[in-house]
Protein backbone atom coordinates (compact mmCIF):
# COMPACT_ATOMS: atom_id res chain seq x y z
CA UNK A 1 0.00 0.00 0.00
CA UNK A 2 1.28 3.40 -0.94
CA UNK A 3 2.17 5.88 1.80
CA UNK A 4 0.31 8.74 0.12
CA UNK A 5 -2.39 8.51 -2.50
CA UNK A 6 -4.42 11.17 -4.22
CA UNK A 7 -7.53 9.93 -5.92
CA UNK A 8 -9.29 12.24 -8.40
CA UNK A 9 -8.64 15.38 -6.43
CA UNK A 10 -10.39 18.55 -7.60
CA UNK A 11 -9.46 21.84 -6.00
CA UNK A 12 -10.75 25.37 -6.44
CA UNK A 13 -9.55 28.81 -5.48
CA UNK A 14 -12.83 30.60 -4.95
CA UNK A 15 -14.61 29.99 -8.22
CA UNK A 16 -11.67 28.97 -10.30
CA UNK A 17 -11.10 25.31 -10.82
CA UNK A 18 -7.39 24.60 -10.45
CA UNK A 19 -6.89 20.85 -10.10
CA UNK A 20 -8.74 18.46 -12.36
CA UNK A 21 -8.95 14.85 -11.14
CA UNK A 22 -5.38 14.68 -9.95
CA UNK A 23 -4.38 11.16 -8.91
CA UNK A 24 -0.98 10.06 -7.78
CA UNK A 25 0.71 7.66 -5.38
CA UNK A 26 3.97 7.74 -3.45
CA UNK A 27 5.46 4.60 -1.93
CA UNK A 28 7.29 4.63 1.35
CA UNK A 29 10.96 5.53 0.91
CA UNK A 30 10.61 7.00 -2.55
CA UNK A 31 11.58 10.40 -3.83
CA UNK A 32 8.95 11.36 -6.36
CA UNK A 33 9.02 14.45 -8.55
CA UNK A 34 6.00 16.49 -9.53
CA UNK A 35 7.10 18.39 -12.57
CA UNK A 36 5.44 21.26 -14.33
CA UNK A 37 5.81 24.87 -15.33
CA UNK A 38 4.79 27.88 -13.27
CA UNK A 39 1.12 27.77 -12.49
CA UNK A 40 0.67 24.18 -13.63
CA UNK A 41 -0.91 23.24 -10.30
CA UNK A 42 2.04 21.91 -8.29
CA UNK A 43 1.64 24.21 -5.32
CA UNK A 44 -2.10 23.71 -5.30
CA UNK A 45 -1.57 19.95 -5.22
CA UNK A 46 0.59 20.40 -2.15
CA UNK A 47 -1.84 22.77 -0.50
CA UNK A 48 -4.60 20.25 -1.14
CA UNK A 49 -2.61 17.49 0.51
CA UNK A 50 -1.68 19.48 3.59
CA UNK A 51 -5.17 20.96 3.98
CA UNK A 52 -4.41 24.64 3.43
CA UNK A 53 -6.65 24.62 0.37
CA UNK A 54 -8.83 21.58 0.93
CA UNK A 55 -10.03 19.72 -2.17
CA UNK A 56 -13.67 20.03 -3.16
CA UNK A 57 -13.84 16.39 -4.22
CA UNK A 58 -11.62 13.36 -4.39
CA UNK A 59 -9.65 11.74 -1.66
CA UNK A 60 -6.25 12.18 -0.07
CA UNK A 61 -5.10 9.13 1.87
CA UNK A 62 -2.05 8.97 4.06
CA UNK A 63 -0.97 5.64 5.53
CA UNK A 64 -4.30 4.28 4.36
CA UNK A 65 -6.37 6.84 6.23
CA UNK A 66 -8.37 9.59 4.65
CA UNK A 67 -6.92 12.98 5.61
CA UNK A 68 -8.74 15.46 3.42
CA UNK A 69 -11.21 17.43 5.51
CA UNK A 70 -8.83 17.59 8.46
CA UNK A 71 -7.35 20.93 9.43
CA UNK A 72 -3.77 21.58 8.35
CA UNK A 73 -2.25 21.16 11.80
CA UNK A 74 -3.90 17.76 12.21
CA UNK A 75 -2.60 16.56 8.86
CA UNK A 76 0.84 17.75 9.84
CA UNK A 77 0.59 15.79 13.07
CA UNK A 78 -0.25 12.66 11.09
CA UNK A 79 3.26 12.93 9.64
CA UNK A 80 3.27 15.09 6.52
CA UNK A 81 5.69 18.02 6.52
CA UNK A 82 5.19 20.88 4.08
CA UNK A 83 7.96 23.16 2.84
CA UNK A 84 6.33 25.98 0.88
CA UNK A 85 7.86 27.44 -2.23
CA UNK A 86 8.45 30.97 -0.98
CA UNK A 87 10.45 29.62 1.98
CA UNK A 88 8.66 31.52 4.68
CA UNK A 89 10.86 31.02 7.67
CA UNK A 90 9.68 33.14 10.58
CA UNK A 91 11.57 36.40 10.06
CA UNK A 92 11.53 37.62 13.66
CA UNK A 93 12.75 34.36 15.15
CA UNK A 94 16.36 33.20 15.25
CA UNK A 95 17.41 30.13 13.33
CA UNK A 96 17.34 28.05 16.48
CA UNK A 97 13.95 29.40 17.50
CA UNK A 98 12.58 28.63 14.05
CA UNK A 99 13.55 25.03 14.68
CA UNK A 100 12.30 24.88 18.25
CA UNK A 101 8.86 26.14 17.30
CA UNK A 102 8.31 23.03 15.22
CA UNK A 103 9.24 20.51 17.93
CA UNK A 104 6.37 18.44 19.18
CA UNK A 105 6.69 16.69 22.46
CA UNK A 106 3.71 14.40 22.58
CA UNK A 107 4.97 12.21 19.79
CA UNK A 108 6.88 9.11 20.84
CA UNK A 109 8.82 8.72 17.67
CA UNK A 110 11.74 6.40 17.69
CA UNK A 111 14.85 8.42 17.08
CA UNK A 112 13.18 11.85 16.72
CA UNK A 113 14.84 14.75 14.93
CA UNK A 114 16.61 17.11 17.28
CA UNK A 115 18.22 20.46 16.71
CA UNK A 116 21.61 18.73 16.84
CA UNK A 117 20.68 16.11 14.28
CA UNK A 118 19.36 18.77 11.97
CA UNK A 119 22.54 20.80 12.41
CA UNK A 120 24.56 17.75 11.46
CA UNK A 121 22.65 17.64 8.21
CA UNK A 122 22.83 21.41 7.62
CA UNK A 123 26.07 22.61 9.26
CA UNK A 124 25.55 26.06 7.80
CA UNK A 125 22.51 26.55 10.01
CA UNK A 126 24.52 25.95 13.13
CA UNK A 127 26.90 28.71 12.14
CA UNK A 128 23.97 31.06 11.75
CA UNK A 129 22.12 29.79 14.79
CA UNK A 130 21.69 33.18 16.43
CA UNK A 131 20.74 35.07 13.27
CA UNK A 132 17.17 36.07 12.59
CA UNK A 133 15.29 34.36 9.81
CA UNK A 134 15.17 37.64 7.91
CA UNK A 135 18.97 37.86 7.88
CA UNK A 136 19.54 34.62 5.96
CA UNK A 137 20.36 34.25 2.28
CA UNK A 138 17.93 32.48 -0.04
CA UNK A 139 19.78 29.19 0.17
CA UNK A 140 20.00 29.35 3.94
CA UNK A 141 16.32 30.14 4.20
CA UNK A 142 15.58 27.11 2.07
CA UNK A 143 17.67 24.92 4.33
CA UNK A 144 16.02 26.37 7.39
CA UNK A 145 12.49 25.70 6.19
CA UNK A 146 13.42 22.13 5.31
CA UNK A 147 15.16 21.67 8.65
CA UNK A 148 12.24 23.23 10.48
CA UNK A 149 9.82 20.84 8.83
CA UNK A 150 12.06 17.87 9.71
CA UNK A 151 11.68 18.86 13.35
CA UNK A 152 8.04 17.80 13.18
CA UNK A 153 9.33 14.26 12.51
CA UNK A 154 7.48 13.80 9.25
CA UNK A 155 7.31 10.45 7.55
CA UNK A 156 6.85 12.36 4.37
CA UNK A 157 8.12 15.68 3.15
CA UNK A 158 6.45 17.89 0.53
CA UNK A 159 9.09 20.16 -1.00
CA UNK A 160 7.75 22.93 -3.19
CA UNK A 161 10.31 24.16 -5.72
CA UNK A 162 13.31 24.04 -3.43
CA UNK A 163 15.74 24.95 -6.21
CA UNK A 164 13.85 28.05 -7.30
CA UNK A 165 15.99 31.15 -7.53
CA UNK A 166 19.08 29.47 -6.09
CA UNK A 167 22.53 29.62 -7.62
CA UNK A 168 23.65 26.38 -9.37
CA UNK A 169 26.18 25.61 -6.66
CA UNK A 170 23.56 25.80 -3.94
CA UNK A 171 21.19 23.71 -6.03
CA UNK A 172 23.78 20.95 -6.26
CA UNK A 173 24.24 21.11 -2.51
CA UNK A 174 20.51 20.89 -2.03
CA UNK A 175 20.33 17.75 -4.12
CA UNK A 176 22.83 16.06 -1.82
CA UNK A 177 20.79 17.07 1.18
CA UNK A 178 17.60 15.62 -0.23
CA UNK A 179 19.39 12.33 -0.87
CA UNK A 180 20.63 12.48 2.69
CA UNK A 181 17.14 13.06 4.03
CA UNK A 182 15.92 10.11 2.05
CA UNK A 183 18.62 7.96 3.62
CA UNK A 184 17.23 8.96 6.98
CA UNK A 185 14.02 7.22 5.98
CA UNK A 186 11.89 10.17 4.95
CA UNK A 187 9.73 9.86 1.85
CA UNK A 188 9.83 12.94 -0.37
CA UNK A 189 7.42 14.42 -2.88
CA UNK A 190 9.15 17.18 -4.78
CA UNK A 191 7.55 19.87 -6.94
CA UNK A 192 9.98 21.24 -9.49
CA UNK A 193 10.37 22.73 -12.91
CA UNK A 194 14.06 21.95 -12.96
CA UNK A 195 14.18 18.60 -14.72
CA UNK A 196 17.83 17.94 -14.18
CA UNK A 197 17.61 18.59 -10.50
CA UNK A 198 14.83 16.02 -10.27
CA UNK A 199 16.80 13.56 -12.34
CA UNK A 200 19.50 13.66 -9.68
CA UNK A 201 17.30 12.99 -6.69
CA UNK A 202 14.12 11.21 -7.68
CA UNK A 203 13.11 7.78 -8.90
CA UNK A 204 9.78 8.52 -10.46
CA UNK A 205 8.04 11.56 -11.76
CA UNK A 206 4.64 12.97 -12.59
CA UNK A 207 4.20 15.76 -15.08
CA UNK A 208 1.36 18.15 -14.39
CA UNK A 209 0.03 20.81 -16.70
CA UNK A 210 -3.09 22.99 -16.51
CA UNK A 211 -4.09 21.24 -13.34
CA UNK A 212 -4.08 17.66 -14.55
CA UNK A 213 -1.51 14.89 -14.60
CA UNK A 214 -0.18 14.39 -18.11
CA UNK A 215 2.55 11.84 -17.61
CA UNK A 216 3.72 9.38 -15.06
CA UNK A 217 6.78 7.15 -15.13
CA UNK A 218 10.33 6.62 -14.04
CA UNK A 219 12.72 9.52 -14.32
CA UNK A 220 14.73 7.55 -16.80
CA UNK A 221 11.81 7.20 -19.16
CA UNK A 222 10.83 10.80 -18.66
CA UNK A 223 14.31 12.02 -19.50
CA UNK A 224 14.20 10.01 -22.67
CA UNK A 225 10.76 11.26 -23.67
CA UNK A 226 11.50 14.34 -25.71
CA UNK A 227 7.90 14.86 -26.64
CA UNK A 228 6.71 15.22 -23.05
CA UNK A 229 9.70 17.37 -22.21
CA UNK A 230 9.08 19.71 -25.09
CA UNK A 231 5.37 19.89 -24.54
CA UNK A 232 5.12 20.44 -20.84
CA UNK A 233 8.46 21.49 -19.49
CA UNK A 234 10.69 23.17 -21.99
CA UNK A 235 10.01 26.34 -23.87
Amino acid at each position, binding site marked *: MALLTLDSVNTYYG*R*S*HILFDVSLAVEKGEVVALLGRNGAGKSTTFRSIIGLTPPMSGEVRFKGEKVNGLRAFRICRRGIGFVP*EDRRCFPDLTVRENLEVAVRREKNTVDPWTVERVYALFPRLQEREKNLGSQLSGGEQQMLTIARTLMTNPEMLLLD*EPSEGLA*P*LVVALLADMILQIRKEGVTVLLAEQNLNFCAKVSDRGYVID*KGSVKYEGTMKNLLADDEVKEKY*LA*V
Partner: protein
Amino acid sequence: MGAPMGLLEIRGVVKSFGGLRALQDVTFSVGQGEIRAIIGPNGAGKSTLFNVMTGLFPPDSGEVVFGGERISGVPPHRIIRKGIGRSFQITNIFPRMTVFENVQVALFAHHRSSRDPLGMARRYPSVAAETLDVLRQVDLAEKHELSASILSHGDQKRLEIAISLASRPRLLMLDEPTAGMSRFESRETVELLRGISREQGLTLVFTEHDMDIVFGISEKIVVLQQGAVIADGTPAEIKANPQVRKAYLGEEIQA
Protein backbone atom coordinates in the same frame (compact mmCIF):
# COMPACT_ATOMS: atom_id res chain seq x y z
CA MET B 1 19.14 59.23 -31.53
CA GLY B 2 20.40 57.02 -34.37
CA ALA B 3 18.36 53.85 -34.10
CA PRO B 4 14.58 54.10 -34.46
CA MET B 5 13.00 54.29 -31.04
CA GLY B 6 10.53 51.72 -29.85
CA LEU B 7 7.25 52.66 -28.26
CA LEU B 8 8.57 51.35 -24.97
CA GLU B 9 12.21 51.38 -24.02
CA ILE B 10 13.60 49.69 -20.95
CA ARG B 11 17.13 50.96 -20.40
CA GLY B 12 19.50 49.49 -17.87
CA VAL B 13 16.87 48.99 -15.18
CA VAL B 14 18.22 47.84 -11.82
CA LYS B 15 16.05 47.10 -8.79
CA SER B 16 17.06 45.60 -5.46
CA PHE B 17 15.01 44.65 -2.44
CA GLY B 18 17.05 44.69 0.74
CA GLY B 19 20.25 43.36 -0.79
CA LEU B 20 18.49 40.99 -3.15
CA ARG B 21 18.95 42.03 -6.77
CA ALA B 22 15.58 41.49 -8.38
CA LEU B 23 16.51 43.14 -11.68
CA GLN B 24 19.98 43.67 -13.01
CA ASP B 25 20.57 45.91 -15.97
CA VAL B 26 17.46 44.97 -17.92
CA THR B 27 17.38 46.51 -21.36
CA PHE B 28 15.06 45.87 -24.26
CA SER B 29 12.70 47.71 -26.52
CA VAL B 30 9.16 47.11 -27.71
CA GLY B 31 8.03 48.46 -31.06
CA GLN B 32 4.69 50.01 -31.90
CA GLY B 33 2.03 47.34 -32.47
CA GLU B 34 4.32 44.54 -31.37
CA ILE B 35 3.17 41.55 -29.31
CA ARG B 36 5.91 40.87 -26.86
CA ALA B 37 6.21 38.16 -24.23
CA ILE B 38 8.38 38.29 -21.14
CA ILE B 39 9.12 34.79 -19.87
CA GLY B 40 11.37 33.17 -17.34
CA PRO B 41 11.25 30.67 -14.48
CA ASN B 42 9.52 31.60 -11.24
CA GLY B 43 11.33 34.32 -9.37
CA ALA B 44 13.13 35.54 -12.49
CA GLY B 45 11.89 39.08 -11.88
CA LYS B 46 8.96 39.31 -14.28
CA SER B 47 6.52 40.76 -11.79
CA THR B 48 9.11 43.19 -10.48
CA LEU B 49 9.79 44.36 -14.00
CA PHE B 50 6.07 44.84 -14.56
CA ASN B 51 5.76 46.83 -11.40
CA VAL B 52 8.68 49.06 -12.31
CA MET B 53 7.27 49.58 -15.79
CA THR B 54 3.88 50.67 -14.43
CA GLY B 55 5.17 52.91 -11.70
CA LEU B 56 4.40 50.87 -8.59
CA PHE B 57 7.96 51.55 -7.57
CA PRO B 58 10.83 53.41 -9.20
CA PRO B 59 13.96 51.61 -10.46
CA ASP B 60 17.18 52.06 -8.47
CA SER B 61 18.85 53.08 -11.70
CA GLY B 62 18.05 53.01 -15.38
CA GLU B 63 14.89 54.31 -16.96
CA VAL B 64 11.67 53.37 -18.67
CA VAL B 65 10.72 55.48 -21.66
CA PHE B 66 7.28 55.36 -23.25
CA GLY B 67 6.54 57.20 -26.47
CA GLY B 68 9.70 59.21 -26.02
CA GLU B 69 8.76 60.26 -22.49
CA ARG B 70 10.48 59.04 -19.39
CA ILE B 71 7.92 57.33 -17.16
CA SER B 72 10.01 55.64 -14.50
CA GLY B 73 9.33 57.21 -11.12
CA VAL B 74 5.96 58.58 -12.24
CA PRO B 75 3.03 57.37 -10.06
CA PRO B 76 0.74 54.74 -11.62
CA HIS B 77 -2.28 56.96 -12.12
CA ARG B 78 -0.25 59.34 -14.29
CA ILE B 79 1.38 56.54 -16.25
CA ILE B 80 -2.04 55.15 -17.07
CA ARG B 81 -3.08 58.54 -18.37
CA LYS B 82 -0.17 58.49 -20.80
CA GLY B 83 -1.71 55.48 -22.52
CA ILE B 84 -0.69 52.33 -20.71
CA GLY B 85 -3.19 49.75 -19.48
CA ARG B 86 -2.39 46.96 -17.10
CA SER B 87 -3.95 43.71 -15.97
CA PHE B 88 -2.74 41.71 -13.01
CA GLN B 89 -1.64 38.20 -12.27
CA ILE B 90 -4.22 37.79 -9.54
CA THR B 91 -7.55 38.81 -10.97
CA ASN B 92 -8.00 42.43 -10.14
CA ILE B 93 -11.52 43.71 -10.63
CA PHE B 94 -14.13 45.51 -8.55
CA PRO B 95 -15.90 42.44 -7.20
CA ARG B 96 -18.97 43.96 -5.59
CA MET B 97 -19.93 46.14 -8.53
CA THR B 98 -21.76 45.01 -11.63
CA VAL B 99 -19.89 44.05 -14.78
CA PHE B 100 -21.24 47.19 -16.37
CA GLU B 101 -20.07 49.42 -13.55
CA ASN B 102 -16.62 47.87 -13.62
CA VAL B 103 -16.05 49.14 -17.14
CA GLN B 104 -18.11 52.28 -16.74
CA VAL B 105 -15.94 53.52 -13.90
CA ALA B 106 -12.85 52.98 -16.01
CA LEU B 107 -14.39 55.06 -18.77
CA PHE B 108 -15.30 57.80 -16.31
CA ALA B 109 -11.68 57.91 -15.31
CA HIS B 110 -10.58 57.95 -18.92
CA HIS B 111 -12.91 60.79 -19.89
CA ARG B 112 -12.07 62.67 -16.73
CA SER B 113 -15.70 62.66 -15.70
CA SER B 114 -14.80 60.95 -12.43
CA ARG B 115 -14.63 64.41 -11.02
CA ASP B 116 -18.31 65.09 -11.60
CA PRO B 117 -19.87 64.73 -8.15
CA LEU B 118 -23.47 65.66 -8.94
CA GLY B 119 -24.37 64.31 -12.36
CA MET B 120 -26.09 60.95 -12.30
CA ALA B 121 -23.81 58.18 -13.49
CA ARG B 122 -26.75 56.67 -15.33
CA ARG B 123 -27.27 59.84 -17.31
CA TYR B 124 -24.08 59.51 -19.30
CA PRO B 125 -25.51 57.90 -22.43
CA SER B 126 -22.29 58.12 -24.39
CA VAL B 127 -20.36 56.40 -21.63
CA ALA B 128 -23.06 53.77 -21.34
CA ALA B 129 -22.85 53.04 -25.05
CA GLU B 130 -19.08 52.93 -24.91
CA THR B 131 -19.19 50.63 -21.90
CA LEU B 132 -21.34 48.15 -23.78
CA ASP B 133 -19.02 48.46 -26.77
CA VAL B 134 -16.03 47.50 -24.67
CA LEU B 135 -17.96 44.66 -23.04
CA ARG B 136 -18.95 43.39 -26.46
CA GLN B 137 -15.29 43.25 -27.46
CA VAL B 138 -14.63 40.78 -24.67
CA ASP B 139 -17.97 39.04 -25.09
CA LEU B 140 -19.39 40.06 -21.74
CA ALA B 141 -22.14 42.42 -22.89
CA GLU B 142 -24.85 39.93 -22.06
CA LYS B 143 -23.65 39.62 -18.50
CA HIS B 144 -23.43 43.34 -17.83
CA GLU B 145 -26.06 43.31 -15.09
CA LEU B 146 -24.39 40.63 -13.00
CA SER B 147 -22.28 41.32 -9.98
CA ALA B 148 -18.66 40.83 -10.99
CA SER B 149 -18.05 38.61 -7.99
CA ILE B 150 -20.27 35.84 -9.33
CA LEU B 151 -18.60 35.56 -12.73
CA SER B 152 -16.53 32.53 -13.58
CA HIS B 153 -12.79 32.94 -13.30
CA GLY B 154 -12.32 33.19 -17.03
CA ASP B 155 -15.03 35.84 -17.31
CA GLN B 156 -13.45 37.79 -14.47
CA LYS B 157 -10.11 37.72 -16.22
CA ARG B 158 -11.74 39.00 -19.39
CA LEU B 159 -13.55 41.65 -17.44
CA GLU B 160 -10.20 42.78 -16.17
CA ILE B 161 -8.92 43.03 -19.70
CA ALA B 162 -12.01 45.03 -20.59
CA ILE B 163 -11.31 47.43 -17.73
CA SER B 164 -7.79 47.92 -19.03
CA LEU B 165 -9.01 48.39 -22.60
CA ALA B 166 -11.53 51.00 -21.57
CA SER B 167 -8.89 53.66 -21.16
CA ARG B 168 -7.91 53.19 -24.82
CA PRO B 169 -4.29 52.41 -24.09
CA ARG B 170 -1.59 52.39 -26.74
CA LEU B 171 0.20 49.74 -24.74
CA LEU B 172 -1.47 46.98 -22.76
CA MET B 173 0.56 45.11 -20.18
CA LEU B 174 -0.85 41.77 -19.10
CA ASP B 175 0.56 39.77 -16.22
CA GLU B 176 -0.29 36.12 -16.91
CA PRO B 177 -3.55 36.83 -18.72
CA THR B 178 -4.59 33.18 -18.83
CA ALA B 179 -3.59 32.11 -15.32
CA GLY B 180 -6.18 29.78 -13.85
CA MET B 181 -8.15 29.52 -17.08
CA SER B 182 -9.24 26.31 -18.71
CA ARG B 183 -7.62 25.47 -22.02
CA PHE B 184 -10.67 26.56 -23.89
CA GLU B 185 -10.90 29.86 -22.05
CA SER B 186 -7.20 30.50 -22.61
CA ARG B 187 -7.54 30.01 -26.31
CA GLU B 188 -10.49 32.35 -26.53
CA THR B 189 -8.65 34.98 -24.56
CA VAL B 190 -5.60 34.71 -26.75
CA GLU B 191 -7.66 35.08 -29.88
CA LEU B 192 -9.36 38.05 -28.35
CA LEU B 193 -6.10 39.77 -27.53
CA ARG B 194 -4.60 39.07 -30.88
CA GLY B 195 -7.68 40.43 -32.61
CA ILE B 196 -7.70 43.62 -30.61
CA SER B 197 -4.03 44.14 -31.17
CA ARG B 198 -4.41 43.71 -34.89
CA GLU B 199 -7.51 45.87 -35.23
CA GLN B 200 -6.37 48.76 -33.12
CA GLY B 201 -2.62 48.55 -33.54
CA LEU B 202 -2.42 48.00 -29.80
CA THR B 203 0.98 47.04 -28.44
CA LEU B 204 0.89 44.08 -26.05
CA VAL B 205 3.46 43.15 -23.44
CA PHE B 206 2.66 40.08 -21.42
CA THR B 207 4.10 37.46 -19.13
CA GLU B 208 2.82 33.93 -19.41
CA HIS B 209 3.79 30.45 -18.38
CA ASP B 210 1.77 28.62 -21.00
CA MET B 211 4.35 28.16 -23.74
CA ASP B 212 1.74 27.30 -26.34
CA ILE B 213 0.35 30.76 -25.89
CA VAL B 214 3.72 32.46 -25.73
CA PHE B 215 4.90 30.89 -28.95
CA GLY B 216 1.46 31.05 -30.50
CA ILE B 217 0.99 34.79 -30.43
CA SER B 218 4.12 36.69 -29.57
CA GLU B 219 6.28 38.30 -32.21
CA LYS B 220 9.22 38.79 -29.93
CA ILE B 221 10.19 37.25 -26.63
CA VAL B 222 12.52 38.39 -23.91
CA VAL B 223 13.73 35.80 -21.40
CA LEU B 224 14.66 36.72 -17.85
CA GLN B 225 16.61 34.62 -15.41
CA GLN B 226 17.60 35.74 -11.95
CA GLY B 227 16.72 39.29 -12.86
CA ALA B 228 18.81 39.49 -16.01
CA VAL B 229 17.92 39.28 -19.70
CA ILE B 230 19.43 36.07 -21.06
CA ALA B 231 17.78 36.15 -24.45
CA ASP B 232 15.81 38.54 -26.64
CA GLY B 233 14.51 37.59 -30.05
CA THR B 234 11.87 36.01 -32.24
CA PRO B 235 10.14 32.82 -31.07
CA ALA B 236 12.31 30.74 -33.38
CA GLU B 237 15.48 32.27 -32.04
CA ILE B 238 14.36 31.72 -28.47
CA LYS B 239 13.48 28.08 -29.13
CA ALA B 240 16.93 27.47 -30.51
CA ASN B 241 18.76 29.30 -27.75
CA PRO B 242 20.74 26.85 -25.58
CA GLN B 243 20.88 29.24 -22.64
CA VAL B 244 17.10 29.37 -22.49
CA ARG B 245 16.90 25.60 -22.50
CA LYS B 246 19.28 25.50 -19.62
CA ALA B 247 17.32 28.05 -17.64
CA TYR B 248 14.11 26.13 -18.04
CA LEU B 249 15.25 22.55 -17.77
CA GLY B 250 18.17 23.14 -15.45
CA GLU B 251 20.42 21.21 -17.76
CA GLU B 252 24.14 21.07 -17.22
CA ILE B 253 24.24 22.31 -13.67
CA GLN B 254 27.87 23.08 -13.10
CA ALA B 255 29.46 23.41 -9.75
